Each structure stands twice: as structure tokens, then as C-alpha cells.
């Protein structure tokens, strides 16, 4: 069974008197353990697709099955729970809580999952160690570099062992060297069996994925496998 099965997914927005067709009927299947890039210029509908995949939004038409569950018609509460358990978000601008230290930021999804304080602290600590931030637990985001912030965000995405890591331009706010470090972290996560979906408009970033879906004008323009994904030379789990 596919992890994600999308059929004829469409999303329309009504803006004043005009209806915008952001997505016009997209069908995709994504298997467990895939490393996938969604590419497209701005206005292509890739952000809309990402919001739908991340259960932040519901489609106007079509079906979306995640792990065999139909999420297209779920209630707001059910969607919140799905986001909590099945999806780990990584954003371009990191989106960490400025007033909380790294550890607390990573703990956050576990709070909403109802994990008791002691256990969630331990799990958050372990996840931070895994992304190479064992010595930065009690630093606040403004005391961390961009790369370190994105690692905290990745740890937060990972901590609840989700089915998908959904990254939206994860290297967009980083210099190229740090960007490469983050991509190498994704490769490592992919090797360990995580499903990763990266939304990007950078060819460089997409080349690291094993499958690339190109979106144009709300439709899939191309869905190609990348037989030789670019490997990052840098050491993988070094902090």
C-alpha cells in the first residue's frame, strides 16, 4: 500500500469575484521511504500542494489517502492530530518559538501528543543529539546560527516519528555551505528510512532527491526518477 495516494486533487480559491484554480487535478502516489522533490516556479501551485500534503488545507475536489486514511474530508481536530503524528514540517524561515530554547522547541509536538514531561524531554534530547546539536540544547534560536536553527527545526519534525518529513525550501534562508549540510542531513535521514518531500524551486536542491515532480499551472508537468541523485560529499552526521 502506498503511503500517499492522491487522485484528481484540485484546490480553488475565491478571491473577490475571481476564482483562482491553484491546483487543477493532480494524481500522485508516493511510497514509504521515498526522497521526493516537488519543483515549480512561484504561482505553479506547489505551495498549495504542499499545504494539502501537510494537512494544513483541505482540497476542493479529489481524494487524498495518507497511510490508508482519507484525510480529504477530515475535521479540523482530526487534521491537527494527523499533523501532529504523521507530518514533520521543516520551513524556509525555520519557524521556531523565539522565546523557547532548542530543547523546548523540539518538545513541542510531544506536548500536543500528550507525552508525559519526563519522556518527552528525553526523546527531545535524543533527537537533538541525532541532528548534531547535543551541546546546544539550552540555546535560544537567536543564539544559534541559521544552520543550527534549521537542525532544531528538523529535530522538531522528527521527534514524533512522523510518516513524512515535509520541507518547504529548507535551504532557502541558508548560505550554500550550510545548505549542503542540511541536504546531507536529509540524505542521512532518507538512508535511515524516512520519507522526505522537499518543495523547492532550486534545481540544485532537487537534484539530491531520487524522484522529482514538476508542477506547472496547477498540473503535474513531469514526474521523473533521478537515477543518480547527487550525493553530498561532506561528512553526514558531524555537528
Amino acid at each position, binding site marked *: 500500500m502506498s503511503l500517499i495516494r492522491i487522485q484528481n486533487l484540485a484546490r480553488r480559491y475565491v478571491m473577490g469575484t475571481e476564482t483562482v484554480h491553484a491546483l487543477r487535478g493532480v494524481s500522485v502516489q508516493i511510497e514509504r521511504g521515498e526522497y521526493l522533490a516537488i519543483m515549480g516556479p512561484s504561482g505553479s501551485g506547489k505551495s498549495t500542494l504542499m*499545504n494539502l500534503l*501537510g494537512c*494544513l*488545507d483541505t482540497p476542493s475536489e479529489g481524494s487524498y489517502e495518507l497511510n490508508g486514511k482519507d484525510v480529504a474530508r477530515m475535521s*479540523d*481536530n482530526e487534521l*491537527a*492530530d494527523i*499533523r*501532529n*503524528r*504523521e507530518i514533520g*514540517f521543516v*520551513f524556509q524561515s525555520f*519557524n*521556531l*518559538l523565539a*522565546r*523557547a530554547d532548542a530543547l523546548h522547541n523540539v518538545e*513541542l*509536538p510531544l*506536548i*500536543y*501528543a*500528550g*507525552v*508525559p514531561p519526563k519522556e518527552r524531554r528525553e526523546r527531545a534530547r535524543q533527537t537533538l543529539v541525532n541532528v548534531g546539536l547535543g551541546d546546544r540544547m539550552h540555546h535560544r534560536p537567536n543564539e544559534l546560527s541559521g544552520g543550527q536553527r534549521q537542525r532544531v527545526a528538523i529535530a*522538531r519534525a522528527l521527534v*514524533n*516519528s512522523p*510518516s513524512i518529513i515535509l520541507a518547504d525550501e529548507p535551504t532557502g534562508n541558508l548560505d550554500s555551505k550550510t545548505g549542503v549540510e542540511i541536504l546531507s542531513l536529509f540524505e542521512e535521514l532518507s538512508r535511515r528510512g524516512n520519507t522526505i518531500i522537499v518543495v523547492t524551486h532550486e534545481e540544485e536542491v532537487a537534484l539530491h532527491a531520487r524522484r522529482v515532480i514538476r508542477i506547472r499551472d496547477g498540473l503535474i508537468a513531469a514526474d521523473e526518477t533521478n537515477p543518480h541523485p547527487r550525493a553530498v560529499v561532506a561528512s553526514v552526521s558531524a555537528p
Partner: protein
Amino acid sequence: MNSRTMTPWRELVEMVRMAANAVKTNILRSSLTILGVFVGVFSIIAVMTGIRVLQQNLEDAMNGLGANTFQFQRFSAISFDAADWEKYRRRKPFRIVDLSQLERRVTLAQAVSASANFGSGEASSRYAQTNPNIPGNGMTPEAFTTQNFTLGEGRGFSTADDDSGRLVCVLGFDLAAKLFPRGSPLSESVKFQGISYKVVGVLAQRGALFGQSRDNFIAIPLGTARRLYGENLSVQLQVQAPNRDTYAEMVEQARGVMRTMRQVPPGDDDDFEIVSNESAVKQFRSLTSAIRLGVAAISSIALIAAGIGIMNIMLVSVTERTREIGIRRAIGARKRSVMMQFIAEAVLLSEVGGALGVVGGILFGNLISFVVKAPPVIPWDWVGIGLAICSAVGIVFGTYPAWKAAHLDPIDSLRYE
């Protein structure tokens, strides 16, 4: 995969913890918001504590009359109304002759007594001298029982003292201590308003009421007062029932007798007051209820203003933290969790102000206990009411901002700059 969800209790604990963090982060803003609630709660608690101190003092001190006893008097026990005062003043005073009529006609009474204040003056002994502000009381022998006087040493007045108008006196505790700093005053001589009396007794200490000593007076037999100051002295009359059961019946009988004696037409109001320990306390309560009501109204307005302050600051906070709300929603916070977090924040602000107001109000209200020399009180009921009101204020004024926060669109909030 994690199949657990939050229990309501854990959710509450977590949201309160988050709220506390937010309150701490914006310490200046939080303090100013808290100040509003503080003022409202402080004023209500301070006044209620003050009134409670006075009431406690009154109840403790309301032993001015003996058990099952009431007193006829022209004036009401407590009155702040000048118009009433005028009405009381125009009433016919009670005279000594009324006493024998009462004795004869109120058959249910166990004892009937009279006392009269014949003016203040200077008292002196061979050791010391007072200011000319010592009240002089004429008392029949029975008045010791009906007015609940306990003798510290010596004796009260005998019928013979009263009948023949002997020049004897009984001193209040404080007066005795002042005039006779060393040794017993018994058989000593005290000069009051130029007349010398022999001290036969000293009363036990009775304490202060509303800060005024009730032990600073001199008592002489009423017969003596009549002889020296004339038959027209205005008196107060006390009537005592043998027990609780007959008391009410006796009051009615005595009231009827008194109306006949004073020729009150049927259907008219009494032209006298019937005062007992209980009625005085009751009267105090009804008088202070107006004050209480006024303070409650003013405090409510203050608390509503404070609530609006909380709402305002919460709305600002929601806007400022739009991004945070988006993040929380994206990683799996339900609307209800976000809503609870912000309501908890509003309630916390309100409760911190409330708790400070309660503490401050109790301390301030108890200042009056130093003035009236009474033990301090903690009005637990008002502590509870005050804190409950604070919770209500937090919930009422926090709900709209919290609702707004919970219903923000997660996608837009994540992009909010």
C-alpha cells in the same frame, strides 16, 4: 507512531505552563495589566475586611446588656442619619417614675432597672486627677445584672444605698487604675463634680468598643443621683426576662405597657427604641450593607475596566504571536489547545492581580483593627469571592481574544511577518 492524546488535565497543566511563560516574558506589560485587577480586588477586600473587623469588635463587645435583657431608650443604638437624630431628640425622655410602673406592670420580667447619665466631670482621688470627661452614671442595684456588670472587687449597690441616696460609688476598671495606681481603691474617697463618694466596688475590665474604652466611668446609686440632680433626670430602662423562652413574650408585654404609659395611639409607631445586644449587631449589619453595596458596585466597575485592559492586551498579544499560533497549529495543536492557552493567560493575569489585591486588601483593611484595638480578621469568604470573580473576569474577557487566536488560518499565520 504515537497514538496517545492529551488528557484534559494534562492539557490544562501544559496550557497554564505555556501561559505562565508568556506572562513572564512580557513582564512590564503584564504588570500594568495586573495592576488594574489589583486595584479592583484591593478596594473590595480592604473595605470588607475593615467592616468585618468592626463587626467582630461589635459582636465581641456587645455584652453591654445582660442575658435576655433589652433596654428602652429614645435613641437608636447606631445611626448615621441626621434626620433620624432629630426625630429621636423630639421624643419624650424616660423618667424615674416610669421605673415603678414597669416594675408593677411587666409581670413577666425577672428584673427591671434604670440608669441615668447625669453628665461628665472631673474625678479625683488623693493620688490623681482626671480630665473632666468622665461620665457619671446613676444606677439602681438591679442595673448591675441587667447591664452585665461584673465586679472585680468590692460590692455593687444595695437597696439601702439607693433608697437613702448614700454617697457611695463604683469605679470602672480604667478609672480605678488611674485614680489609684497603687493599692485597692476600696473605702477610699473619690471626688466627682465636687462631691465626695466612698468607693465600694471596682468593675472588671470590659474592653473597648470602636476604639473607645468602656471602663472609664463612675457609677453612683440612682437614688443618690436623684437627690443631687433632681427627679427630672432622663433615664434608660432595662428589663430582663428569667430565660430565653419567655424573652420574646416579655418584650411584647413590656412594649404594650410602655405604649400605654406614653399614650401612643393604636396604629402609631413606637416612640421609643427597644435595644438588645442582638438588635445592635443586626442594626450595624444593615447599616453597613449600604457601604458594602456601594463598594461592590465601584469595585465591579474597576474590575470591568481591568477586564477590558486584559482583553486589549490579549488582542495585541494574539496579533504579535500570530506566527507562534501558526507554528503550534502546524505541529498539531488543536483549536481548543490554542484557545485554552490564551484563556489560561488571561485568567493568570487576572488571578495574579487578584491574589495581590487580596493580600494587600487584607493588610490594609486590618489597619483599622489597630485603631479600634481589636484582633485582625481574614474574611475567607471574601477571599474566595474575590478570586472567583478574578477567574470570571479572565475567562469572560479572555475568551474573545483566545477564540480569535484559535480560529486564525494556520497557513496565513505561518506566513505572517
